């Protein structure tokens, strides 16, 4: 699985509580991404990072924040979880996209349920 570990694998939390998901990679890739996957939708980008402390928003970033203090770790935080954030969250890594086409490599996901 391209050396990507997501934790926890499953999480149940209550509405209004903060939640942090962790992604750890051993590939030394600069680019890391957080996606969510919901029935009827393709994977949708939440945030991405192009280096330590360098992050940017994706298409569904509202309600989420990220941090990257080390190359290998990318954290996704839901400041105050809502039921609409119940989803499966995937972390991905890639080589720099300007290198002529770089596939994303994914972790095995975190299934988050907000009750």
């Amino acid at each position, binding site marked *: 699985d391209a050396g*990507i570990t997501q934790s926890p694998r499953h999480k149940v939390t209550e509405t209004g509580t903060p939640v942090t998901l962790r992604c750890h990679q051993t590939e030394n890739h600069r680019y890391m991404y957080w996606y969510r996957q919901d029935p*009827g939708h*393709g994977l949708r980008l939440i945030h991405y990072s192009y280096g330590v402390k360098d992050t940017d928003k994706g298409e569904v970033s509202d309600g989420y924040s990220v941090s990257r203090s080390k190359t290998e770790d990318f954290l996704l935080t839901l400041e105050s979880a809502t039921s609409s954030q119940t989803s499966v969250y995937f972390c991905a890594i890639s080589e720099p996209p300007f290198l002529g*086409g770089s596939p994303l490599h994914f972790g095995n*996901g975190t299934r988050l349920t907000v009750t």
Partner: protein
Amino acid sequence: GESVGLHLPTLSVQEGDNSIINCAYSNSASDYFIWYKQESGKGPQFIIDIRSNMDKRQGQRVTVLLNKTVKHLSLQIAATQPGDSAVYFCAENRVGTYKYIFGTGTRLKVLA
């Protein structure tokens, strides 16, 4: 709007037959395409990719065909095996950008 294979059809094939999974993309500026396999409870797994300067690329038991004229991508799996049962989806990207557009995929069921 941009879309890549929004519907999730199911393709059932007999073990040993060839499978063809199709994908339509809508962004004519996309020039890099990827096929993924996703098994239940796992993350998407990279299968094969193709750049727009090619119309065919082969891997081990898989072939990707790209038709830029009609903005169509297909994945062919030779001698389909039970382990090929999964959801397959394509993704498109414009080289140099972080934006990858994913479809919802096609479920492949291999019948014994």
